[in-house]
C-alpha cells in the first residue's frame, strides 16, 4: 500500500465546499523535540474528523494550535478562511473547543458560565437556547450550582453547553465522552451529528475507536507527531484491509501505528 494510493482517494467523496479548517504544513517543535511534523489536513462543512493516535502522538497539540492556544513553529492554520495567527479574534469567533478534563471558573455558577460565553461571543437572546441546552444535558436543576462543586462529568457537560451556545462553525472535542453518563453520551453523539448536518465542521480527538466509528466521516491518524493517514473512514478501511476484506477501525489503528508503517508525506495540494 503506497502513500500515493491514499492521496488519490482523499478528495473522491468530498463535497466541493470550502474547507472550514485548513491546516497546511503545521509543524510544532519544543527545543529538540518535534511534537507535530509538517501536518496538513482539512475539514469541510459537514465533515466529522476523527483524530486518533497513541498517547503522545500530537493530537492535543494539534487541537490547541487549531484553536489558537499555542503557536505553530511554522505552517499555516486557516479557520473559516481566517489565519489563526494573523487574525485570531475572527478565527476564534468561528470555533468552540471542549478540552479533555475541562476546568471551569471555580467560583461561578453554571448559569454564570453561560452568561459569560453569551457575552464573549455576543450572543443575543441566549436564554431560551441556553435552557434547551441545559435541559438536553440534564443540567437545568444544577444551573445555580458553583463549578467547584460539580463532578467531572458535569463539568464536561457545562463545557459542551458553552461550546454549543454560539453556534460555532467549527467544534473541536478532545476526549469528549470522558465522565459522561450514557444519556449524556447519547445526547452528545446526536448533537454532534446535528451540528455536522447543519454545516459545522467537527474534529473529535479520542482513543475510543467505537466513537470514531459511529460518528466520523473522516480519519486522521497521527503517530509520533507524523501523519500516518488522512482520508475518509471507508478509505482507511480499504487501505488497511487484510485478505478477508475491509478492516475494522481497530485493525486500521493497530496496523497504522505499527512501528514499521511509514508515515505519509505532507500534502502539497488537496
Amino acid at each position: 500500500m503506497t502513500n500515493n494510493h491514499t492521496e488519490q482517494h482523499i478528495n473522491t467523496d468530498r463535497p466541493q465546499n470550502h474547507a472550514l479548517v485548513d491546516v497546511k504544513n503545521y509543524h510544532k517543535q519544543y527545543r529538540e523535540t518535534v511534537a507535530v511534523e509538517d501536518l496538513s489536513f482539512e475539514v469541510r462543512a459537514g465533515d466529522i474528523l476523527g483524530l486518533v493516535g497513541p498517547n503522545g502522538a500530537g493530537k492535543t497539540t494539534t487541537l490547541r494550535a487549531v484553536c489558537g492556544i499555542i503557536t505553530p513553529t511554522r505552517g499555516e492554520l486557516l479557520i473559516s478562511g481566517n489565519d489563526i495567527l494573523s487574525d485570531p479574534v475572527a478565527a476564534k469567533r468561528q470555533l468552540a473547543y471542549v478540552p479533555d478534563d475541562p476546568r471551569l471558573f471555580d467560583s461561578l455558577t453554571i448559569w454564570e458560565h453561560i452568561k459569560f460565553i453569551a457575552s464573549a461571543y455576543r450572543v443575543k437572546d441566549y436564554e431560551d437556547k441556553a435552557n434547551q441546552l441545559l435541559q438536553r444535558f440534564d443540567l437545568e436543576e444544577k444551573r445555580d450550582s458553583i463549578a467547584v462543586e460539580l463532578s467531572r462529568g458535569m463539568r464536561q457537560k457545562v463545557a459542551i453547553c458553552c461550546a454549543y451556545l454560539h453556534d460555532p462553525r467549527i467544534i473541536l472535542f478532545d476526549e469528549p465522552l470522558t465522565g459522561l453518563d450514557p444519556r449524556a453520551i447519547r445526547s452528545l453523539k446526536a448533537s454532534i451529528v446535528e451540528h455536522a448536518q447543519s454545516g459545522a465542521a467537527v474534529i473529535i480527538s479520542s482513543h475510543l475507536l467505537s466513537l470514531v466509528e459511529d460518528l466520523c466521516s473522516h480519519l486522521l491518524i497521527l503517530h509520533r507527531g507524523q501523519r500516518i493517514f488522512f482520508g475518509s473512514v471507508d478509505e482507511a478501511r480499504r487501505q488497511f484491509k487484510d485478505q478477508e476484506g475491509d478492516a475494522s477501525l481497530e485493525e486500521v489503528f493497530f496496523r497504522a501505528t505499527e512501528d514499521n508503517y511509514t508515515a505519509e508525506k505532507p500534502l502539497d495540494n488537496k
Partner: protein
Amino acid sequence: MIHPALPLLIKSQYMSKIRRALRSLKTLRGVMYFLVGLIVFILWIGPSILMAFTDTKSREIAAPYISAFLPFLLLVFCLLALASAIKSKAIYFTAGEIEFLFPGPFKRRDLVIYKIITSVMNIIFVALFMSCFFMRFTNLYIACYLGIFFILLFLHFFSMIVAFISLIVSKHAYTLPRKNILLTIGVLIIIGLWKGIDWQAAQELLLKPLVLAQMVRDNWYGGVILAPFDVFVRTVMAPSFYDLLIWGSAAAGIDILLFCCVISLDANYLETSLSVSEKKYAKLERMRQGGVAAISSNRKTAKWSLPLLPWLGGAGPILWRQLTTAMRNSKGVLLLLFIVSMGIGPMIVMKGVSDESVPFFLIIITMYSIFLTQWFPFDFRSDIDRMDWIKMIPIDSLPIAIGQVLTPVLIVSMLEMIIFGGLAIGVKNNFSLLLAGILLAPSFNLLLFGLENIIFLLYPVRIAKVGPGDFQGFGRMMVVFFLKFIVIILIMGSIIGLGVGGYFLSNKSILVFLAISFTLLTGCGFAVVQCIAWAFEKFDPSIHTPT
C-alpha cells in the same frame, strides 16, 4: 476598549465570592469561624492602628530609616521580580481562564487588561491591610495607603514588562550563538559594575548603614537608579496633603507610564502563559497533596527507590509509600530545613550554647515542632483524594494509621536530633535536660501529628491558603490551632506534672522523671494512634471528602 465580556466575568467572580461567604454564614459553625477570625484579626491589626494615634515617638525614630532604606528594598524587590520574570517569561492564568479565554474571541491585549484589572482589585485590598500595619510610621494615612498601592502596582507592572521583554528577546535569541552573545553582554555589565564599586570603602561603611545609604544616594549612578523608588517612598512618607499631591502624582505618573509600556508590548504570551500556568497548577496540586515541602518537586522520572520495608503488620508498605513521597520531595524538605535553621541558627549564635541556655532552646524547639506540623503533611492530610484507595487496602485500620502518621514524625524527629546534636557540642554539664529532649521528642511529635490527623479525619479540609478578607478560613485556622494548643498543654502539663511528682518522691532522681514522662508520653502517642485508626474507620469518602 476591553471586550465587554471580561468586566462581566470579573464582576461575576467577585459577586460569587461574596455569595459564597454569605452562604457559609448561614451555619452556626460558619458564623463562629467568622467571628473568631474577625476577633483575632482585630487583635492582630488593632494595636498597630492604635499606636498610629498614640505613639508618635516610633514614627520619629523610624521615619529616617524608612526614607533611607525603603528605596533599596524596592530595588531588591525589582531585582527579584526581574529574575523571576526572566525565568517564567509569562503571566499566570488560572485553569478556567485558560480553558475559556485563550480559545475565546479576545485580543491578547484584552486579556492583559483583564489580568491587570484583577490584579488591581487584589492590590486595593492588600494595600489596605499593609497600610493598617505601616500607618504608625507615616504622617498621613491616605499617603501611606496610596503610596503602598502605587508601589505594589509598580512592582506588578515592572514584572509584566520584564516578562514580555524577556519573551520577545528569547524569541529572537533562541539559537546557541545568540544566547551566548546575550550571556557575554550580561557578564560584561556585571564585571563593569563590580569594578566600579570601591569594595574597601563599602566594607568600612557597612557598619554605618545610614551613612552608606546616603552615600549611594549622593552618587550620580545611585541617585539615578533610586530616583523612581524615591518618588514612591516620598509619597508614603508625605508630611502634608500638598506633598502628597506632588509626589503622589509623580508616582501615579510612573505607574501610568509602565501601564502604557505593558499595553504597547505586544508579546505573544499565550503559549508561554499556558505552559507556566500548567506548571503552577501542577505545583499547587502537589502542594495540596504534599504541603509546602512538595512545592519544588517537578521531576518526571525517579532515579532511585527506597527498599521496601518489612510487613510490620501492614504498616510497613504504608510507611514505605509515605517515606518515598517525602524523599521524592526532598528538595522541598531541605528548603524547609534551611528555613528552620535560618530561624534557630542566629539564636544559637546570639545566645550562645551553654548549660543555662538549654531550657530556652528546648522551648524554641517545642514551638518549632508545633509549627512544623503544618509543613509536613505526609500523612492522611495529603491523601484526601486517595481515601477510597486507602480504605480499599486489605490492612487493618491501626497499621494503616501507624504507617500514615510515622513519616512526618520521623522527619521532624530527625531535624530535632540534628539540633540537639549541635547543642550537645556547647553543653558541659546540663546533659540530663538535653537527654530528656532527645528521649521525649519522637513521642511528642507523634502526639502532635496524631492530633493533627484526628482533627483532619473528623473535620477534613483541603490544604489551601487563606486569602485576604477570608475571615472564615482564618477563623477556622485559629480555632483548630487553639484547640490543638489547649489539648497539647493539658496532656503535656499532666505528664510533666506526674514526672515532677515522681522526681521529688524519688529524692530528685532525674531518671525517674524521665522514665515516668517517657512512658506516659509514649502511652499517649499510642492512644492517639488508636484514635486515628478509629477516625479513619469513621471517615466516609462519599460524605467527608471536601470540594
